[in-house]
């Protein structure tokens, strides 16, 4: 199958949507499909061979923050030419309600168009004004995918109709192997990964439990990875225990994998709001023994506790008790690890890509994707490069 994928955000800037597209593309190519991606990119950014640049994105205020987006006739013409030359069977746009390449692709093309909605943007009140323009472009979408229940819910409220739910995948193989971090191979280690200052990630519950445990277990240490204020974390811990806390801050992809392989117990103490436990599936891919709060999303991913232990959400005593049980029982940890590696297979990108492919097959038509002649006025005259804009990058704040 010839598949064209449209990425709305700058390719060389890390982000959830970009990673999603990269992993999906590589999984589809693995299956022998021809995939081409178009994305905004900096002029000299190194791009994988399957990515076509649509030129630089422009920083512009949108929905309360400054986003880097690709819009305008020039970008539209680049997408148009890519559509024409790609001769795709299916066009797969991402985030088509964001004013960037996804929306432009819907505008310039027609035929089988699949759209994936990632974020929930229910509070975007401005849509009513351009609703007619937006709608005529979005109405060309033949198949809709939401990556989470939250995204699906806002999609239903905003556009009506329904979408298929296909969650993010995880590239299991990328996490399977990893050396423990140096200096952390002794004693017992409980690990946490996520934003430390985001209350819903539940770090305070884990810290409270750690203080309870640390008194009885002199060899126990805590490894925390993720952005946030270190001082704020240490404030919650008696000074005597500070040298038993490791704060890694933001970690590279590689160190993240190593962190999963370092810990004896990986803890996900989230209080709720997690539509899909991406961190959990990564830890499962690495074969970590997992202890997670009993929120519905985690219970589901962990097969009702088969692939990882659960504790009462928000309850530090419950967390401490379960953690102690796991730390004392290496056999159970090994079983959980094995179960986790098996259970995560259904979240592997190869599985997820197969579901996406089924959506493609459902909407595909013999004619394939064509350029929409109705808007074809400017086709072909896009030889110029995108000159630097008047909006300097340092100009984002007053």
């Amino acid at each position, binding site marked *: 199958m010839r598949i064209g994928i449209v990425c709305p955000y700058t390719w060389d800037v890390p982000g959830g949507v970009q990673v999603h597209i990269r992993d999906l593309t590589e999984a589809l190519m693995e299956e022998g499909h021809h995939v081409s991606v178009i994305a905004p990119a900096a002029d000299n950014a190194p791009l994988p061979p399957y990515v076509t640049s649509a030129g630089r994105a422009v920083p512009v205020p949108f929905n309360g923050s400054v986003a880097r987006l690709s819009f*305008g006739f020039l*970008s539209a013409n680049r997408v148009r030419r890519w559509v024409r030359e790609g001769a795709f069977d299916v066009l797969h746009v991402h985030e088509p309600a964001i004013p960037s390449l996804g929306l432009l692709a819907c505008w310039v093309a027609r035929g089988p168009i699949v759209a994936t909605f990632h974020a929930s943007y229910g509070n975007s009140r401005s849509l009513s004004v351009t609703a007619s323009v937006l709608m005529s472009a979005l109405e060309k979408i033949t198949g809709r995918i939401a990556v989470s229940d939250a995204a699906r819910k806002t999609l239903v409220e905003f556009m009506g109709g329904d979408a298929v739910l296909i969650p993010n995948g995880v590239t299991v193989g990328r996490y399977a192997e990893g050396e423990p971090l140096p200096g952390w191979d002794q004693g017992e280690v409980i690990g946490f990964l996520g934003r430390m200052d985001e209350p819903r990630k539940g770090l305070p519950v884990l810290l409270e439990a750690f203080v309870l445990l640390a008194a009885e277990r002199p060899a126990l240490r805590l490894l925390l990875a993720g952005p946030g204020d270190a001082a704020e974390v240490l404030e919650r811990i008696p000074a005597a225990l500070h040298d038993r806390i490791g704060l890694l801050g933001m970690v590279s992809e590689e160190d993240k994998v190593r962190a999963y392989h370092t810990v004896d117990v990986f803890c996900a103490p989230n209080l709720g709001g997690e539509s899909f436990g991406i961190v959990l599936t990564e830890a499962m891919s690495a074969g970590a023994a997992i202890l997670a709060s009993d929120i519905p999303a985690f219970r589901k991913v962990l097969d009702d506790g088969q692939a990882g232990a659960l504790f009462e959400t928000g309850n530090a005593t419950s967390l401490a008790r379960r953690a102690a049980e796991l730390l004392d029982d290496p056999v159970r940890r090994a079983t959980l690890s094995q179960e986790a590696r098996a259970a995560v297979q259904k979240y592997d990108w190869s599985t997820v890509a197969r579901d996406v492919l089924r959506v493609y097959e459902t909407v595909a038509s013999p004619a394939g994707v064509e350029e929409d002649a109705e808007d074809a006025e400017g086709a072909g005259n896009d030889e110029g490069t995108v000159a630097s804009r008047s909006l300097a990058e340092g*100009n984002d704040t007053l």
Partner: protein
Amino acid sequence: MTTTLILVVGAIVVLCAVYISWRAGRLDRLHIRLELARESLDAALVRRTAVSLELAASRLLDPATSLVLAAAAHEARTAGPEEREHAESDLSRTLRAVVDQERFGDRLADTAAGSDLLEELGAAVAKVLYSRRFYNNAVGVTRAAQRRWLARTLRLAGHTEYPGFFEIDDAPPKALAAE
């Protein structure tokens, strides 16, 4: 002797009264000027938002540009007093990003409606720039007058608020810049 004293004191009192009433009258005039400047600034901002929305809804643009512009204009229109300066600055930045796209002007000039809108937008953007400058001038003068010893002691400004400057980024798109 006492008659002379009474006359002198009387003359001083009269002179003081005249002076104070003259100062009060000046302050009053400044307040009126400030109010008018404020109204004209408000009108200019509303006008700019309206033209932006009209352009966004005109179908002369690609949908992504329309959406970016409509979102910013909508934010500016609905912003409360606290967020207003921020929202208007965002609209200025958005207008720069939109209008300074390559060949944006040529595109719009292709149609009569487009060139009219572009003309209108240019005027609206310039009037924001002017009216804000005039308003801030009026604020400066009024503040200085209100701060004077006499005005403060005798509360000549009455209950009028100490006026604040209106600080936004209103730099126009290069393609529309007048100065």
